């Protein structure tokens, strides 16, 4: 089984249940300045109804004209998900009434989407390559986002802001291949990372640029697929995992009491961690999809497709394998490629001459900690990859020890000075002077004769004590390797 431990199961009174999960992710194309079918701006946070064209407001006689860059970003995203690009696709109208939908229909793609089947590789355990699993993508299409309703500003009225109406969305539909909250979380995280690598969507779930509809059903292992429910508009990875857990347990509860799961649309309540019915099947919309007669079929030519492909950056999986090829551990490689900003920074570090395995260890062990303490993301790092490379170079060539490097890093973060300058200024060069080291060792051993005796009679752990004392006496500037060597020579 992919997961190191047993497959995820819900234990009920009648036995064990398996969970089947599919995700429909709506990702805003944040890379474009204007909307999918109008020239109004898409930037987040503007004053209400100031980013609304007459087309977005669905005035009489208004007509849609598609944005080339939106199509390009959707195609690039499809390519990054190893999916089939459909050169011929079409826009359809999805008809329903709601106050955030000015046209009374959404322009979407039902019958012939822009992108077909693809897949995403997820790693359930970053330390374990064998925990990899492939989650299928069924399709990706482009469609309009709706506006926003605000319910809490007035006792009897809701307010309508159409700034978001018409912004381009990619709807990425997975196959129902996931079998646990962890898999759903891993898929969503990986998908988000890929989108951010491609640059089509910033993956900012708090701001709503990415949200998921979670489809959950349960069954006895090996049995027929159960009835699924859909929980809409879940806007964090953590919430998605909570929804899977909650819904699966809820459905098991219903089924074990002899009831049946209603096929319905639900909403997640983050405060309670529960889901509730939004719409039953009987109230389900009849969307009356038909091809949008204001638009013609979308046809993409070779040069368009080729340009999309050649514009793709190195993607997370390829980058991870390249790092591993350079000797970086699988865990470190996973961590370094999880976010595109981190990978870019690390690439800069390698480009400045740092050795990959050591650099990886250092970034993961030291750099992340330092950035956390400063409350900064890596893109706001006070030191550049080149500066970090200089520091790592001083360790690699033996000028300073790893321990001293930590000190130097602190000073670099505080003052912005270069590593070499700091080492000189504070006299932090490590000593490889065997004579001086021997002299110190002798002093320590002499002062701790009792411990020497204990060591000689079997207490091997004390070796560390002697190393520590020697390093302390030499203010950390002794070459640790040499200290080790000389101590061994004297003790053994």
């Amino acid at each position, binding site marked *: 089984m992919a997961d190191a431990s047993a497959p995820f199961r819900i234990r009920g009174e009648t036995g064990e249940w398996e969970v089947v999960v599919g995700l429909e992710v709506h990702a805003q194309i944040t890379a474009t300045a204007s909307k999918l079918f109008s020239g109004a701006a898409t930037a987040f946070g503007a004053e209400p109804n100031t980013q609304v064209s*007459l087309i977005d*407001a*669905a*005035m*009489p*006689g*208004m*007509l*849609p*004209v*598609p944005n080339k860059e939106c199509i390009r970003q959707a195609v690039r995203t499809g390519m990054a998900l190893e999916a089939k690009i459909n050169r011929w696709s079409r826009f359809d*109208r999805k*008809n329903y*009434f*709601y*106050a955030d939908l*000015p*046209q*009374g*229909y959404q322009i979407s793609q039902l019958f012939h989407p822009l992108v077909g089947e693809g897949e995403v590789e997820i790693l359930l355990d970053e330390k374990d390559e064998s925990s990899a699993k492939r989650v299928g993508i069924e399709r990706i299409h482009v469609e309009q986002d709706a506006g926003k309703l605000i319910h809490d500003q007035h006792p009897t009225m*809701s307010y*309508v802001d159409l700034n978001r109406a018409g912004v381009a969305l990619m709807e990425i539909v997975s196959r129902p291949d996931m079998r646990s909250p962890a898999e759903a979380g891993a898929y969503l995280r990986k998908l988000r990372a890929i989108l951010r690598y491609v640059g089509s969507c910033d993956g900012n779930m708090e701001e709503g640029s990415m949200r998921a509809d979670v489809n959950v059903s349960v069954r006895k292992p090996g049995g027929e697929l159960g009835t699924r429910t859909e929980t809409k508009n879940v806007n964090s990875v953590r919430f998605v995992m909570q929804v899977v857990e909650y819904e699966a347990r809820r459905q098991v509860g219903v089924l074990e009491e002899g009831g049946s799961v209603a096929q319905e649309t639900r909403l997640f309540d983050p405060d309670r961690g529960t889901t509730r019915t939004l719409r039953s099947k009987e109230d389900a919309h*009849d969307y*009356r*999809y*038909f091809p949008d*007669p*204001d*638009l*013609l079929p979308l046809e993409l030519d070779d040069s368009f497709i080729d340009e999309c492909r050649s514009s793709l950056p190195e993607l997370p999986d390829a980058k991870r394998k390249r790092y591993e090829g350079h000797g970086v551990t699988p865990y470190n490689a996973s961590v370094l490629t999880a976010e595109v900003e981190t990978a870019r920074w690390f690439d800069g570090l390698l480009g400045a001459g740092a050795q990959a395995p050591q650099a990886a260890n250092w970034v993961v062990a030291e750099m992340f900690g330092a950035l956390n303490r400063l409350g900064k993301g890596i893109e706001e790092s006070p030191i550049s990859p080149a500066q970090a490379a200089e520091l790592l170079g001083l360790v690699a060539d033996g000028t300073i020890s790893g321990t001293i490097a930590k000190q130097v890093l602190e000073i670099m973060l505080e003052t912005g000075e270069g590593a070499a300058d700091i080492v000189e200024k504070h006299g932090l060069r490590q000593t490889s002077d065997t004579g001086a080291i021997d002299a110190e060792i002798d002093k320590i051993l002499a002062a701790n004769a009792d411990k020497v005796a204990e060591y000689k009679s079997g207490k091997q752990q004390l070796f560390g004590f002697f190393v520590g004392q020697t390093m302390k006496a030499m203010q950390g500037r002794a070459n640790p390797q040499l200290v080790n060597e000389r101590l061994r020579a004297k003790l053994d």
Partner: protein
Amino acid sequence: MSDLTSLSIAELREGFRSGEFTAREVAEQYNAAAAAARSLNAYTVETPEDALASAEAADKARGSDALGSLAGIPLGIKDLFATRGVDTTAGSRILKDFKPPYESTVTANLRKAGAGMLGKLNMDEFAMGSSNETSAYGPVISPWRRKDGGNAPLAPGGSSGGSSTAVAAGIAPGATGTDTGGSIRQPAAFTGICGIKPTYGRCSRWGIVSFASSLDQAGPMARTVRDCAILLEAMAGFDPKDSTSLDLPVPNWESGLSSDLKGKRVGIPKEYRIDGVPDDINVLWDRGIELLRDAGADIVEISLPHTKYALPTYYIIAPAEASSNLARYDGVRYGARAESEGGLDAMYAATRAEGFGAEVKRRIMIGTYVLSAGFYDAYFTKAQRVRSLIKRDFEQAFEKCDLILTPTAPSAAFALGDKSADPIAMYLNDVFAVPASLAGLPAMSVPGGLDSDGLPLGLQLIGRELDEQSVLNAGLAIEERAGFDAKPKRWW
């Protein structure tokens, strides 16, 4: 001062440019004529100041190079075209007092050419009708009366009934109309004037209240073929804001006019000879054949086998598109909003119940039904397939001929109220017009003669895609030879 309201647009253009009269005189006479003809109910809004302002500008610019092709010509504008700051109601209560902050591309083109606006012309509600009886602002009354002296008010045809009446009654030298299933041609035939629906995509639909997107086309209505050519040249042209607009240069239709049809083959489709049509119509058709033969054309019999299925095809596709296009009329962003108890859905339902008339509601219901789950394939997809066959009929026919001649309508104008009881009886008015609409072909009606009641009858010319010139030329050939100079006797 001579009666300028009896002159054609070409004559007005000539007289104005030569200094025989001023543009202001033209505007003043037409403004007065419109004001004196209110019993026709052709204008929903009169804009005499607009006509005068354009006239002044024209008078100032007279003699300069900057003179537009329609300088000095005031026009009536069907109330389906958005006119900035001026009521645009589409003949509906739901758009009462709606003043668009934008101008349709077609009327902007006319203004750029120097034309002024006499007012907005009454029409069937949302262009749905063939008699101008469904307007929320009262029916338009044809200037024609039967010679039996009975004084029954007659229908001017629809949906561009205000436009046809205005031109026929001499209260506008020309008018814009729109044609979805005959709404320019049939009213032109009923009132003894000329009207042309160009190839689908010739005129921009941006800013025209949308009824059936794949069928709607703007076109001119005027007294002569030459006038239609002049107006169409000014109206047509590529518009990047309309995705269905044709990116092709506008031909010089006026200077290309020629009534010499030597070498042209005119097809006579046998399926257009149907039972129940008054003899007068077929007699006129035969006369039309002779007139074209006299102009040099060869006459060939052709077959359009799927003709009888055109109306039912149209009455599935047009209502389906309309049901979606009219969803935006919901009382939220513009137009009337009804008082209602209950929440959002109740407000929608009450607003639309109050705002839409019976025919519009009927078509929305039909359209909603044929798109709904379980019926989409049987009705909508089926109709789109039959539409392909109808288009193919024309393509095959045009291998044997260059033009097609048919009657425009299966009867002369009927009395108001005569066909209101049975919707299908009303729909049958468009039996000869609808096929060319479904196929997107240019088609024109020119007056051919009077029937035994003294009412006008029209002849229809249908051409190949993009061949408005041949259609206009054949129209001119008929006009020159038919000797139609009848005018309605003034009763208003």
